[in-house]
């Protein structure tokens, strides 16, 4: 493999936007995160009778109702449009920078929630309405089409489907476009609304905890499903400085790898995870000791947390870094998770406050890291790493550095 040292040293984060189970907007997200709040509650959007888990982290109804996007759009499209618009407004780009921006969207469920509603009614012989509209936005690419059209973006447009690593991959690959000189601005991020298929699927795999998930806990029993949209504006650093843009953080490096081991299970030694983290550190030009915080993939399943901890040990050594899981607060937001957690990591660097792992009462003694149980911790960290792993053995690690150094 070719050495890719410092491939991203000139890419900065200049805008953020999010719709999360804490509500719409960056302020609501950070307030919830910093307070250690858990937004996982009884599920209202999907049928839960007969399932092992009956909870989820949903975007609150009042927040959805207040989103400016037209109600005929899918739930996921509305979330994506609100988060992407917030990120673009936050970056305060000029007209030319905005028009030429790339758009890289990580997605899995598309408008499946509305498609399922139609299919459920069809199979049950109930009257259906809005058939064409629901089906037209059912596939993941619908989000990029909506955003590209509504936001008038002319740059490269693509939809990445990389399971739970989609959001993280959208950031890495958007940054590649800037690094390669194809564009100087990229709107990147992920979106997933709750769907019945996802909720039922993870139930069928017995991977959902009946209680709000407890990543890194000895008594953890699985994950909690969530939904969200989160977008970041990435910019060429020189362009951002020249126009006087705000720099939230620098994207110092990224690593992507594939396990090529199993469709649903990670490699038992965490080989692909280790390689993604090492590639990210190498591309950032940093050693493990220079990373002060890891925002873990941290799903709360027995296998993920055990193997991710093993991989972290191989990279950082026992206890070598502070670790927490945002999923303990907003659930596993699927394709959005990587970008939600990237936003959390960037805000943690900016505020000098590391978000906690909620619900962590009995830490697993086999996980030799301080996992920031239940309370956020002040820490002036210079660089942090965010992990995203997904079905298909897809691994993405991102390294962010503080904006002002």
């Amino acid at each position, binding site marked *: *493999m*070719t*050495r*890719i040292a410092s*491939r991203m040293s000139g890419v900065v984060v200049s805008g953020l936007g999010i719709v999360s189970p804490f509500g719409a907007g960056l302020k609501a997200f950070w307030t919830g995160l910093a307070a250690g709040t858990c937004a996982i509650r009884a599920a209202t959007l999907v049928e839960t009778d*007969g399932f092992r888990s009956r909870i989820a982290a949903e975007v609150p109804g009042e927040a959805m109702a207040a989103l400016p996007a037209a109600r005929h759009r899918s739930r996921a499209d509305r979330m994506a449009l609100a988060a992407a618009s917030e990120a673009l407004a936050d970056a305060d780009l000029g007209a030319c920078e905005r*028009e*030429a921006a790339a*758009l890289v969207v990580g997605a*899995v469920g598309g408008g*499946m929630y509305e498609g399922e509603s139609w*299919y*459920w009614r069809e*199979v049950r012989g109930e009257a259906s309405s809005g058939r*064409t509209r629901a089906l*037209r936005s059912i*596939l*993941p*690419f*619908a989000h990029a*089409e*909506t955003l*590209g*059209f509504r936001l*008038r*973006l*002319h*740059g*490269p*447009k*693509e*939809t*990445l*489907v*990389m*399971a739970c690593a989609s959001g993280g*991959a959208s950031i890495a*690959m958007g940054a590649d476009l800037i*690094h*390669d000189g*194809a*564009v100087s601005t990229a709107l990147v991020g992920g979106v997933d609304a709750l769907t*019945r298929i996802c909720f*039922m*699927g*993870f139930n*069928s*795999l017995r991977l959902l905890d009946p209680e709000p998930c407890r990543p890194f806990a000895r008594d953890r029993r699985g994950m909690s499903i969530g939904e969200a949209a989160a977008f970041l504006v990435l910019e060429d650093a020189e362009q951002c400085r020249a126009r006087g843009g705000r720099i939230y953080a620098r994207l110092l490096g990224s690593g*992507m*790898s*594939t396990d*090529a081991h199993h*469709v*649903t299970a990670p490699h038992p030694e965490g080989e692909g995870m280790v*390689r993604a983290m090492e590639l990210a550190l190498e591309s950032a030009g940093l050693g493990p000791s220079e990373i002060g915080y890891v925002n873990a993939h941290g799903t709360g399943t027995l296998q993920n947390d055990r193997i991710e901890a093993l991989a972290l040990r191989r990279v950082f050594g026992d206890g070598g870094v502070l670790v927490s899981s945002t999923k303990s607060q907003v659930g596993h937001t699927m394709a959005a998770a990587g970008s939600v957690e990237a936003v959390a990591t960037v805000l943690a660097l900016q505020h000098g406050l590391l978000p906690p792992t909620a619900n962590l009462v009995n830490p697993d003694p086999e996980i030799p890291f301080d996992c920031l149980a239940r309370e956020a911790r002040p820490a002036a960290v210079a660089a942090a790493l965010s992990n995203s792993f*997904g*079905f*298909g*053995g*897809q691994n993405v690690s991102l390294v962010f550095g503080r904006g002002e150094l």
Partner: protein
Amino acid sequence: MSARRVVVTGMGSVNACTAGGTEAVAEALDRMRSAIRPVTGFSAGGGASRLAAQVEDGVLAGLVGRDESRRLSRICQLTVAACRLAAHDANLAGGTALGIAVGTEHGDFRSSVEFATGFLERGPTGLSPMIFPNTVMNTMASVAAIALGARAPSITLNQPTVAGDLAIARGAALIRGGRAQAVVAGGVDEICEVVYRRLAEMGALSPMGGPGPEACRPHQVGHNGSILGEGATFVVLEEAEGARARGARILAELPSAAWGNVPAAPHGARPGRADRASPVCRLLRARRAAPPFSRCYGSGNGDPRVDDWECSLLERDLDGAQDRGLLPPTSLAPVFGQHAGLGALRFGAAALDVSRGAGRVLVHGIARGGCRTALVVAPPEP
């Protein structure tokens, strides 16, 4: 821009016309015999759309092992078979430097329907944990990575009409950016009953609710929609120096690739819409000083709005005097049917043309919704 150059060293395809590596694809392209026939395997419904280009199950059965045919969904079998053919064609081994880029429009929709139907018929006990992973669209890339031992990034791009083209452009970018030394890139789709019937009902297929006969006639008078095809086609892209060092056969080079957005409403087409800020527009205008293209393959598939949009974009961006003979662009849709593998077939055809001395060839694409692609295929630099 990076100095890493990208070359084409092999291809593999399982489509309605043929299955095999470079030679099989070349033979099918030389014959140009359409595989479009009346749909088999399910009822096309009572509408006016009844045709498709389908892969015979017997062909697929000969390309995957008994265990894989039992374990993998049909679209995953198509993907694994074509990727293996491509890797074998290029004499390429797996490892941490080999990546995968899969383009698809519909993914494994058949599995999503099967999974949901299990619940609707039998409740929670009807849910199959074996089928659920297939409902996530990256399942094809995942099984291909396992089959080839490809441990560099494996990515899946979801996109109508130009998914294969986009996967090749992104695959090349993975190599140029140093994330992989070689990438097996292309596209795959399968025809399943639910998708076929709903698209027909929505007027998305020929004859699009009109009175004309059902047919795939890109850029012709009376063009009235596309006809679905299915299959998987993948090419092997490699970093040029590495390919030469291992003695690989080099068919062509991919000196530049670009993709961009021409803002149009979702599923819409906007002929005449300007996209001056688009990287595709910039690439085509910047190359006016370069040697002319000898040929242009396009994504025109019989959908009148897409056909007309593509021609208007190319007329505007190509050098009229130099490239007048390129329009309308050559479409392979009447032979193979519209599916995500078609973009890789267009690219493969261009690589074969170049290997036979055709000079520079443009592979262009535009999809409803505005995703536009351009791949420049040229003889390898010495």
